[in-house]
């Protein structure tokens, strides 16, 4: 039997936290003398009231054991409900947004996608702007903590994830799960502060620096400007953001370990190596194309190439320029990079690097088996053998991902989206990237003009992309780190 009480209890706690978070934009609005502050206070009151009632009525449930089914239910319901409540300030602010728009914006925020329906960001109330950044920030830490917290429920003991990719297997970094979560949150907050300070020193206003820091480390992609990072037109800022996007795209427990053992651990991690190699390779390819075909100076080509490649691969979705004007190759390349994503246990979305590494190893093993059917061939990831169950679950995830993408694209085209918009919109939503391709939803465009039905579908796609990731971690971890 599924027991709903512990699920509702946790959701209640999350809603209370969300309600409290709404007081930040209220305070910002008050400080800047905007009448919108009242919207945030009302929204906070409503959210906290619902959350508080759930907590009180389900009291005692916090000591109950969460089963597997409850864990899944909790995952889905918490992300959905938090998104819906987070949409309230958008709906009642004086932006004149419809329900579909508000939910889309909130889901895009909380899933760290960064696709937006708002225009005129440069002159918008600061409460709304900071609220969007806060949603990214909460969503980012939410996904990282959840990846860590779900493991013990699956009898994995939590520590194996960190032990598995550590060279020293006997050493326990932290005795208890809560400490890991705390350390990760600490790293996350530390990175955000560092990013904000760096951006501020590079010349951003304090408000812009804080906002962009939150949406950079969470690999979200909301900006306070319609022209995104391109507005600032500063190479320094772009490089700062590249660094923090990359940090946000790397496994967070790895950061914790790096703090104790030095940065060598990054190079010892197969997934991080693959991630950085991919970005370097794609940047070089795009930059060479720009130099050779578009005759852009090498320095500028490298700068824009790196920024936009890093932004897509980490699924952030900032744009420093409209890369659709770069010609055919970058467009096709960026389209396929939308599916890749960063490392597991990070804030990035999409398929993730380690899955590609596992898939490659398995496919290679298959080829070798064809040659020598009776020889034992072993596929390895991070020096460990990939057993058949793990291989099948990663392969199955890949198929499921492709299948979901195709269905979503088909459904979007039913609402009259042209092929490029439908195909890239579906990819960007499931991968939690942000901008798509084409004139409508490309980096220079906006999701505002899409029909309501398409917005609901895209919102569902963003949530699915985010949650699929969790369920897939569940799958993988159980098979991978079975006792």
């Amino acid at each position: 039997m599924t027991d709903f009480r512990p699920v509702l209890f946790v959701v209640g706690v999350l809603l209370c936290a969300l309600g409290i978070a709404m007081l930040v934009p209220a305070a910002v609005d008050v400080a800047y003398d905007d009448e919108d502050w009242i919207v945030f206070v009302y929204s906070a009151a409503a959210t906290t009231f619902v959350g508080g009632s759930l907590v009180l009525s389900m009291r005692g449930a916090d000591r109950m054991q969460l089963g597997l089914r409850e864990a899944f239910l909790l995952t889905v319901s918490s992300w959905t409900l938090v998104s819906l409540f987070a949409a309230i300030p958008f709906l009642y602010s004086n932006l004149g947004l419809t329900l579909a728009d508000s939910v889309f914006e909130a889901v895009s925020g909380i899933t760290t996608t960064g696709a937006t329906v708002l225009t005129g960001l440069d002159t918008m109330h600061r409460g709304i702007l900071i609220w969007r950044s806060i949603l990214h920030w909460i969503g980012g830490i939410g996904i990282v903590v959840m990846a860590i917290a779900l493991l013990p429920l699956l009898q994995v003991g939590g520590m194996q994830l960190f032990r598995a990719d550590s060279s020293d297997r006997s050493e326990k970094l932290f005795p208890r799960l809560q400490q890991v979560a705390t350390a990760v949150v600490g790293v996350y907050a530390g990175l955000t502060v560092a990013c904000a300070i760096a951006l501020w020193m590079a010349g951003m206003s304090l408000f812009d620096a804080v906002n962009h820091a939150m949406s950079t480390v969470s690999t979200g992609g909301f900006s306070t400007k319609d022209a995104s990072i391109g507005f600032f037109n500063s190479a320094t800022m772009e490089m700062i953001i590249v660094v923090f996007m990359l940090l946000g795209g790397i496994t967070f427990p790895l950061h914790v370990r790096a703090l104790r053992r030095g940065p060598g651990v990054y190079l010892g991690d197969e997934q991080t190596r693959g991630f950085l190699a991919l970005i370097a390779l794609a940047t070089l390819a795009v930059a060479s194309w720009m130099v050779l075909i578009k005759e852009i100076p090498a320095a500028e080509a490298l700068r824009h190439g790196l920024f936009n490649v890093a932004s897509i691969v980490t699924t952030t979705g900032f744009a420093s320029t409209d890369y659709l004007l770069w010609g055919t190759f970058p467009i096709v390349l960026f389209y396929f990079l939308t599916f890749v994503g960063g490392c597991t246990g990070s804030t990035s979305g999409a398929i993730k690097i380690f899955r590609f590494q596992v898939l490659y190893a398995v496919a290679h093993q298959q080829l070798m088996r064809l040659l020598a059917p009776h020889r034992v061939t072993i596929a390895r990831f991070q020096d460990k053998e990939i057993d058949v169950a793990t291989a099948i679950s990663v392969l199955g995830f890949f198929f499921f991902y492709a299948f979901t993408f195709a269905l979503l694209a088909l459904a979007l085209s039913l609402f009259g989206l042209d092929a490029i918009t439908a195909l890239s919109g579906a990819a960007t939503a499931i991968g939690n990237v942000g901008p798509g391709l084409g004139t409508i939803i490309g980096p220079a465009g906006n999701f505002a003009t899409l029909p309501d039905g398409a917005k609901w579908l895209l919102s569902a796609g963003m949530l699915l992309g985010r949650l699929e990731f969790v369920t897939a971690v569940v799958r993988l971890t159980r098979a991978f780190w079975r006792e």
Partner: protein
Amino acid sequence: MLDVRPIFFVIGILLVTLAAAMGVPALADLVAGQSDWRVFAGSAAACLFIGVGLILTMRTEEMRIGIRQAFLLTAVSWVVTALFSALPFALADLNLSYTDAVFEAMSGITTTGATVITGLEKAPPGILIWRAILQWLGGIGIIVMAVSILPLLRVGGMQLFRMESSEKGEKALPRVAQVVTVIGLIYAGLTLACALGYWAAGMRGFDAVAHAMTTVATGGFSTADASIGYFDSAAVEWVAVVFMLAGSMPFVLYIQAVRGNPMPLMRDAQVRTFLVIVVACIVLLVVWKVATGRADVGSAIRLATFNLVSVITGTGFATSDFSLWGEFAVTMFFFAMFIGGCAGSTTCGLKIFRLQVLYASTVAQAGKLLQPHGVFVPHFNRKPIPESVSESVLSFFFLYVISFGALAVGLGILGLDFVTAVSGAASAIANVGPGLGNIIGPAGTYAPLPDTAKWLLAFGMLLGRLELFTVLILFTPAFWRN
């Protein structure tokens, strides 16, 4: 060391066959009084000379073919056949470059149907029948390969079809050679029936034969620039639909049907799923066309059935420019390209049985997710799927998507726009023919593409036709190591 002599010996035999096949267009041109017959006679002589030379020099005492030789033979034989069958295209007065000629030949032999030739209506009959013959040979070639070689090589889950016959004990026919002969006869019979059908529907005898060859082979070359749309006849289209579907069935099952037992064909899970998918897609398209006011129900059914069947079976005929049917239709046709028909047919693409295995494996995975200690075994055709088969089918899917992505990025580098690059890659690898967009769409041709893009696309066609693994394995260092 890899003994390549048996490989060249078999290729010699293939070239001799090809030379014999070139006699047909030579004869056709001679009858029509076209000077092009010399081109075919010359090409045939060249093929015959090299073929006989290979047969005589490469004969060995022991004609054993190991696994490596089998892989190499498969890939090399298709490439060599394509290169030699390109000779008439390059030498005829069509003004084709050798690149164009190889593209056309590869498109023919892989039953793709993408073309660089315009003005087909005025082309000499020899060239037209040569294109049809290439597809016809390619079609029977791939069935023979799928029945005899691929299951042994265990490519992408094809071992399912080996187990099927050995496990049951009741073997359809005792020896592979006999199976192949019977399938060849069935293939020829279907082609004959199709030609008669076209002829009865009002086509000229020549057009009927040429189209019958490309229909049963699910190829898609036509004798008119406007493809089947040129004839503008509902009867012709329905004949085409029936025989395109017939070409997409597992040919092995026809053997029992011919012997008076159609049950295995009717009850086959793959056949049923294929038909269900086809009907479902047609219904969706008809509803879309009618609901958006693009056509009345009658013409919507006719257009949707013909064009969808043509794309999903990888044939590539067209009666209308489906890129103009609106957003949903375009996206639908794009994804339909990937599907393909049944295994052991003339179609390409992912193939229905793979989708079934993928689906069953994923559902079993989801079950395990909720009940880690439960036992979930995926089934195909009422039999459990071994984990090794799941793994190899899933890997096939991964490699398919990666190959598609790499091909599309490659085409992007060569300057093709997004829609042309992505749909061209999908169409080539699935051996469909037309892509989307106004360059390579159903109303366009591949002629304006840069030469390098044509080579890349020709490689994509070969890759898709030979089920990826067979070609990719040649690029692994381990293959060439001792």
